[in-house]
């Protein structure tokens, strides 16, 4: 599909969900089911942009299922002469439950390298999750999609309960058997550390609570927040 970006005169103001909806209506714009992250392919033209739509339950504004439920990855090829124009296509479609991305559980973040996309999952916990959050690798050349990491919830191990409590701020959230923690942001740090194939990613461990996690950043608004989380460095993934 080809299309164009339009100027939003109210861009300088914040807008509520309802106001956003009416702006989208006004422009006859595409309403995506929660755009979460964006990156561009490295080493090429710089005009090959990927963004991730995480998906949303088929209720409320998505009651007619016109938006994604399980998540999609889009490619936006910007016009060489006019960056406000471009072509949009779906690259991976989690809603096609017999297609290559049929196991998608709400891809959330993306990093694009020269030859790959790495996609992190943050399941919406519909209750039909079959795996804990994956880090997906998508080969832009061969189109192969595979999981390269799965978050380890310590299932079946003696300390499982310690990391999988359902108390605290996420009390009622953990209704799903799997996938209740999320991968959370990924960047390519190869050039910073001088070691090709090195990535940094975050994991929000929603089931790991401890008093020592409270208020460590000095923030005051979510002072009750006591979840553990981790920043990990991954090496050896191809770029």
């Amino acid at each position, binding site marked *: 599909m080809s299309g164009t*970006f339009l100027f939003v005169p109210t861009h300088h103001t914040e807008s509520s969900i309802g106001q956003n909806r009416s702006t989208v209506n006004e422009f006859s714009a595409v309403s995506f089911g929660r755009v979460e992250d964006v990156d561009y392919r490295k080493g090429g033209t710089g005009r090959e942009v990927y963004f991730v739509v995480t998906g949303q339950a088929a209720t409320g504004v998505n009651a007619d299922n016109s938006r994604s439920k399980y998540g999609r990855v889009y490619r936006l090829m910007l016009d060489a002469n006019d960056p406000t124009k471009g072509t949009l296509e779906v690259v991976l479609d989690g809603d096609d439950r017999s297609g290559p991305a049929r196991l998608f559980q709400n891809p959330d973040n993306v990093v694009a390298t020269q030859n790959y996309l790495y996609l992190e999952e943050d399941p919406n916990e519909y209750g039909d999750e079959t795996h804990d959050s994956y880090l997906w690798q998508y080969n832009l050349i061969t189109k192969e999609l595979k999981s390269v990491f799965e978050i380890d919830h310590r299932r079946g191990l003696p300390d499982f309960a310690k990391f999988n409590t359902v108390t605290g701020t996420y009390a009622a959230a953990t209704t799903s058997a799997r996938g209740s923690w999320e991968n959370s942001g990924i960047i390519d740090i190869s050039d910073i550390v001088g070691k090709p194939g090195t990535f940094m990613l975050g994991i929000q461990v929603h089931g790991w609570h401890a008093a020592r996690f409270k208020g460590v950043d000095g923030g*005051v*608004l979510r002072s009750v927040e006591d979840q553990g989380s981790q920043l990990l460095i991954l090496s050896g993934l191809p770029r």
Partner: protein
Amino acid sequence: MSPALPDELPMTNRTAVLPLVVLATLALIYALTERPPFATEADGHDVPSAAIAVAIDRYRLDLSRADSALGELASLAASHHIAETRAAFLRARRAYKRVEWLAEHYTPLTAAALNGAANDRPDDESPALVVRATGLQVIGAMVYRRDATPEVLDSVALQSRIARVNIRRLRERADESVITSAQLFDAARLELARVQTLGIAGFDAPLAETAIPEAATSLQATFGALTGFARETPAASALREGVRSAVAYLDAHPDFSAFDRFTFIVKFCGPIAIQLSDLQRVAHVPFLTDNRALRANVSSPFDKGAFDPAAFSPPGKRYQSNAIASIGERLFFEKRLSGAGDRSCAMCHRPSDAFTDRQKVPAPLIVTGEARVISPQRNTPTLLNAALQAAAFADARVAFLEDQVAAVIENPREMGGNLEHVALRLGADASYARAFAAAYTTPPGAAVTSSRIRTALAAYMRTLVRLDSRFDRAMRGDETAMTAAERHGFNVFMGKGRCGTCHFVPLFNGTAPPGYSDSEVEVIGVPSSSLRGAPLDTDRGVGALDGSPLHVHAFKTPTVRNVAMTAPYMHNGAFATLEQVIDFYDAGGGAGMGLTVPHQTLAADSLHLTRTEKYDLIAFLGTLTDSTYRKPPR
């Protein structure tokens, strides 16, 4: 989880807005048309930049003052002086009222963080998460506690510091933004509407009861900032005079309960609204033309035709024409929409009963087999003005009428139909096929489709907007339209009775003014019946859908327009009369009646309404009847 955009977010926990903010900021407005939707102001010589500068300079100055007032509040609270803290709180509120109109324009989310409802709320994106309320209303709830202990005052100090961070954000946003004169006038018009619909109802100062003097502050600050526009014209002096007399009226009648809102709206705000539009034309400032529920080019929410139901349509192509709505009207009476061919929409939404069925809840279809029950049986709502809300059903489970249509037809306990089958059945009927083919631009293929059935019924419901009751005529200046008792009832509704803080004028539903873009849900603790000692109704409402503990027993605020025609009341039809409804609220809802209602959003205190007040309240509700509708085709 989303890319960090710290300076795009207010200091609240609304992670839910992130993807949308991302959407807006990245301008992922990838559209299929190139039609410029907004009126844009030429950058030429006619832009009164000096007049804009006057307004913005005042805003900056007022922001500094609000910051100082909050700083003072923080330090007095920290030193645990309760009386001084209360006084400083009132000064901080007044200071905020001076910046409210532009804070709401530039930064509505930050404005909500500064002066939004005091209730914690579920995160939009992950409803199981609780988002803590912040701001002046939270502070107000603390400083007026009988047991304002040192710990409570420490929390006041903390909240005041959070508010200062948000004030700083207002400043930054104003510094980095441009505003056009069209936007400035729009912000002023919306502030005038905010004062009338929320301010004088005590929406944001329920305990302090300082709403009336604060309304004067809002008006003075807002209209005082427009003095640079067409300064020497009669229009400018008329507006100055209009505001001056409104403020004089507010100054002379500061008591919250006794305040005559009817007179204030009709005699003072109505003229200001017209004077503002006049000045805007005289100053050659264009009106904005963006699509919203409260049209951008009307003077006041009380004007005829002020609301546009199309603003609540789903994204994409609009299917709204007389031909389509007329098919919808025919379908509304069509029994073949139901599975057994024996139920039409009109059998429960009876036009002669303001589109209700007068039952507590409709008799469910007998469900055999494994059909999934989608929701409990609930009271049939009126369809009059149903188009003017951002959510359908008592549990707000869909956003658009098109989806409401599908959900009712396909609910095994309601109509037990299947839209695809219905489309085939009606498609075989030559008169439907002809009508659909004529009303819709038909590509090759079937004229009658499930999607067209949905859009046609939705189009019909969008024609059921009726805003010409005696109340509406009174608001538009017809002095004979309401009796003295009815006017008094309106004042109770908007004041002592607190009704207007949830049933927002002039739609009287939960669609929040002055943006009218989001519809609210509330927990009020409705019992299972009106019998003495009846337990809390078991229907978990919104909470059954989104899993939020704060939404258990929450229901969408329905309109009370035509309420004299729509008994029985509440989601379960528990109350047979308006007297019972008002007694329920007078008692403080379920919690006030002694039921255990976790997270009730209605204050549990008695309203102490007198017999006359209740009587007049009901008399007023009678003025909201406008159930006129076109006769069905057969």
